[in-house]
């Protein structure tokens, strides 16, 4: 099934990426037997948020209203839960202010980077979920992001600033910021046109297979000559080459079917320190949102890690016109936003900082709305069967790791018959509720993971469940 999806999506008629997708494929296998939430997206923004994030009232349904920063999420409010009073101080040994650069990873691992100069963290939430459900798709997970600047690391190993997905405590999964590379990874190299000669395609597949056979045989021979630690390094190479080999073999064996739409390959090839003069972060974001939506619709993967920006980014958001915020909303203002980190420390009620938060919420909303528009037949829409965790690891200008901005977007999920998470509410936890416990609850109760602990977790949170 999954392979059919992918091939199908290669063959369509060159629909531009920005056009709405066609209906998704037929219902996927094995849905009835497991939790209906089948997809997990961790959507991260750095630097915390201005004061206009927290909704004024608690409660559910009509009892609570969106805050000024969250206002762009109005179209998906019924799929939205805001969690407040959640803290992530525990990994840092109490109220020791974590640096920015700890928080890219620690938000999703709830483990302190130990700062010994090596990659060292914990496994991240998405990778625990990928272990559970990743085998069902071509790619167990993908990691994408938008930062085109060298991330600032506060003297710590940079992995913690620029990588929030950790396959193990020593293997960060770096994100791809290049839209074309993300597309190529999702699509492989099959041409978008539909006139391709089947024999030629088969030959190309065989040639690729032959290259990978060589690569694996060659690396295996090299492996024998290395020391123990170098063998472990080369193991990462062998694992990656084998993954690709498996994919090349699988894809070639499938016949195209289904209705997965064909987007146009993006021409944009952004890299860190490598953007055009007319680079537009909003355009970059929308390209990436389209690619993530495509990956989900075509069922290439069900686990996505998406960094809207790197920890402590000071990227100049001067493509954004500042909005004027009050406690009840915002209106378009004048002037451009500046560097993100600078604005973070220019007061918790400053309009520039709040506007960047508003833009982040708008991106979350755009992604959610794309999933909402995808029909899954009897199972409803794709958003209902997904969980987006939209969050930062820092409160705001004071660097606190408490009162974190956290939003869950998606369906409540149906485990056999009952709803798991109650959506459309503002849930204020007791102070200092651990972020690790939020993750653990999602892992166990939503995705059915066998893990009994996560990071510095203490237990599941019954309040989060219905």
């Amino acid at each position, binding site marked *: 099934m999954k392979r059919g999806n992918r091939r199908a999506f290669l063959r369509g008629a060159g629909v531009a990426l920005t056009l709405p997708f066609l209906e998704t494929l037929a219902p996927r296998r094995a849905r009835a037997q497991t939790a209906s939430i089948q997809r997990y997206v961790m959507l991260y923004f750095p630097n915390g948020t201005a004061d206009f994030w927290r909704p004024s009232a608690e409660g559910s349904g009509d009892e609570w209203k969106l805050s000024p920063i969250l206002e762009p999420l109005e179209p998906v409010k019924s799929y939205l839960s805001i969690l407040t009073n959640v803290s992530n101080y525990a990994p840092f040994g109490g109220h020791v202010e974590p640096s920015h650069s700890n928080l890219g990873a620690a938000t999703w691992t709830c483990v302190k980077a130990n700062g010994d100069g090596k990659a060292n963290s914990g496994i991240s939430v998405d990778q625990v979920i990928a272990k559970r459900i990743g085998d069902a798709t071509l790619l167990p997970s993908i990691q994408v992001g938008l930062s085109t600047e060298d991330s*600032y690391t506060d003297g710590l190993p940079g992995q913690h600033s620029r990588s929030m997905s950790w396959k193990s405590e020593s293997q960060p999964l770096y994100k*791809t910021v290049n839209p074309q590379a993300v597309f190529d990874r999702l699509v492989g190299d099959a041409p978008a046109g539909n006139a391709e000669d089947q024999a030629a395609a088969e030959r190309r597949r065989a040639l690729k297979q032959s290259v990978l056979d060589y690569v694996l045989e060659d*690396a295996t021979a090299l492996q024998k000559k290395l020391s123990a630690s170098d063998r472990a390094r080369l193991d*990462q190479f062998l*694992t990656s080459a084998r993954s690709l080999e498996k994919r090349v073999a699988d894809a070639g064996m499938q016949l195209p079917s289904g209705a997965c739409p064909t987007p146009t390959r993006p021409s944009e090839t952004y890299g860190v320190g490598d953007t055009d003069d007319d680079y537009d972060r909003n355009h970059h974001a929308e390209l990436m949102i389209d690619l993530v939506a495509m990956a989900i619709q075509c069922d290439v993967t069900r686990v996505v890690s998406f960094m809207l920006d790197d920890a402590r980014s000071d990227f100049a958001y001067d493509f954004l016109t500042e909005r004027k915020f009050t406690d009840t909303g915002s209106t378009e203002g004048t002037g451009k936003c500046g*560097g993100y980190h600078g604005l973070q420390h220019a007061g918790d009620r400053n309009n520039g900082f709040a506007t960047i938060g508003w833009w982040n919420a708008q991106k979350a909303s755009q992604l959610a709305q794309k999933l909402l528009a995808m029909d899954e037949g009897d199972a409803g829409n794709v958003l209902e069967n997904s969980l987006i965790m939209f969050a930062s690891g820092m409160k705001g200008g004071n660097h606190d790791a408490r009162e974190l901005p956290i939003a869950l977007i998606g369906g409540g999920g149906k485990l056999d018959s009952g709803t798991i998470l109650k959506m459309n509410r503002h849930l204020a936890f007791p102070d200092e509720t651990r972020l690790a416990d939020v993750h653990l609850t999602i892992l166990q109760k939503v995705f059915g993971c066998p893990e009994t602990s996560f990071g510095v977790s203490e237990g599941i949170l019954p309040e989060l469940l219905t």
Partner: protein
Amino acid sequence: MGIALAGVACSGKIVGTLETDPTAPPGTPHGPSSGGTGGGGGSGAGSGPVSNTAAGMGGLSSMNGGTGPTAGSGPSAAGDPAADVNRVPIHRLNNAEYDNTVSDLLGVSSKAGTAFIDDEKLFGFDNIAAAFGMSDARYEEYFNAADALVEEAFADDGTRKKLLVCTPKSDSDLDCAEKVLDAFMQRALRRPATDAELTRASKLVSDAVELGEDISGGIKQALKAILSSAPFLYRVELDPDPSSATPHALTAYELGSRLSYLVWSTMPDDELFEHARDGSLTSDDVLVAELERLLADDRAERFIASFGGQWLGFRALESHQVDKGEYPDWNDTLRAGMVAEGLSYFSEFVRGDRGLSEFFTADVNFVNAPLAKLYGVSAPSGDAMLKVTNTSDQRRGFLGLASFLTLTSFSKRTAPTLRGVWVLENLLCEHIEPPPASVPELDTGGDGEDASVNVRDRLAEHRKNPSCAGCHETLDPIGLGLENFDAIGKYRTTYAGGDAVDATGMLPSGEGFEGLLELSSLLAADDRLADCAQNKLLTYALSRELVASDTAYLRSIKAAWTADGLGLAALLEHVVTSETFRQRRGEP
């Protein structure tokens, strides 16, 4: 002559970069690289404990005349940990090295690596072998790039002919194909291919022909495979016995790669390969001559940009934020001029004949048009950078470079503490702990703080708090001495708010000064700069963290280098000819 920092009453925690704290890369704890404001609580103030790296390093800062190992001898100076040539892990090419290498190999011009997943940095550099892993997404980038680059090379008559060292007579001319592969693999693997490797690659050609490719398609197939293989993507140095700690010499090919990636960030060229083939590269004379040849070549600019650009912050300036409202002169051309000036300045010390003793005092600047305006000198007529001396505004030496002065400022105003911390950390290799969480922030540097603020007064207020004073009395003086230069490095005598600039200060040693010129003269006598430079260079050259067992090598390099007058080209020579650069060991 150093500025005595040891014993500062901050935390009492002495952190020795070499022995105990491998994390200590350059860059301030909450750095200035992105304008903005103070990062963590109090980071704007930069208040934090200072520890004397030198103390932790066992006195490396004052090791003139120390005796250490010479090539071939093991014993270390009394008190030093035993010398160990150590080992470098298999070393994946970084993205710049990848682009340079495929360009040399294939003659292609496209730069696939610039849009690859970003490289990891560690200890301040992007070439540290231990920092580099592999992931599925990254491997697919390499795999796809190999395909595209080989197709690009074969689409061009000139580049194709260079690769095809013989012309296949037919699709079954495997002898010719094998000659092509043999020649290619020697360069791609940076050593001759083994028989088994060549056989394996040749089989790719025949298999492809069987699948219906012509002989050219078969050769392309093999080249793609080689460019996707581990021995190309990783620089591999082998140990005769991978589990033995006994040091052994690198092969001449391995040494050639170390040298070419150090100076050119790419694979060896034909001449270097020739010296590897006949083994002559392992001799001192040839090794030194080759280093000199490489340094004289234009490609040595990559060393300037990579090593110098990372060490001295010119690369970080690329993503630094300046508030255009506060500084209307700021634009990308000015930024580019600052970066170019920094690199040219550093080049004076590597490819020119200036000694490091002039680093703080050299009266030389390089300007493009907007930078000339900033400095108040005549603008060059074209786009090229113009070398100038005697700028009229008391500007001199590294601390007078607009790139440094800008990078270490906030977006709207100067930050003396950040300037001081940057110099201490990056030029003197002091390790400075981030400020304790209990220390209040000086200010935000954000909307409420613009160029009109008298920063000296603000810092003085901050130092009234006893918990801040201990550190700031150490951290602030250097930056206060530079207050005549605003947040983009323009000379000034008053703040925008009208207060006169006071650029006096006193170093912790008790030496007083006023302004950049006097401060720079004092710093010029500080021998920690030389120690720091060699720590940085040896880290970069070995592509690994320095540890206690490198102390003896540092000591011996320093002794020889001092005798040679402390020029950076001489430092390179002593690094390259050192035992630790030319040997390695297995891993028991």
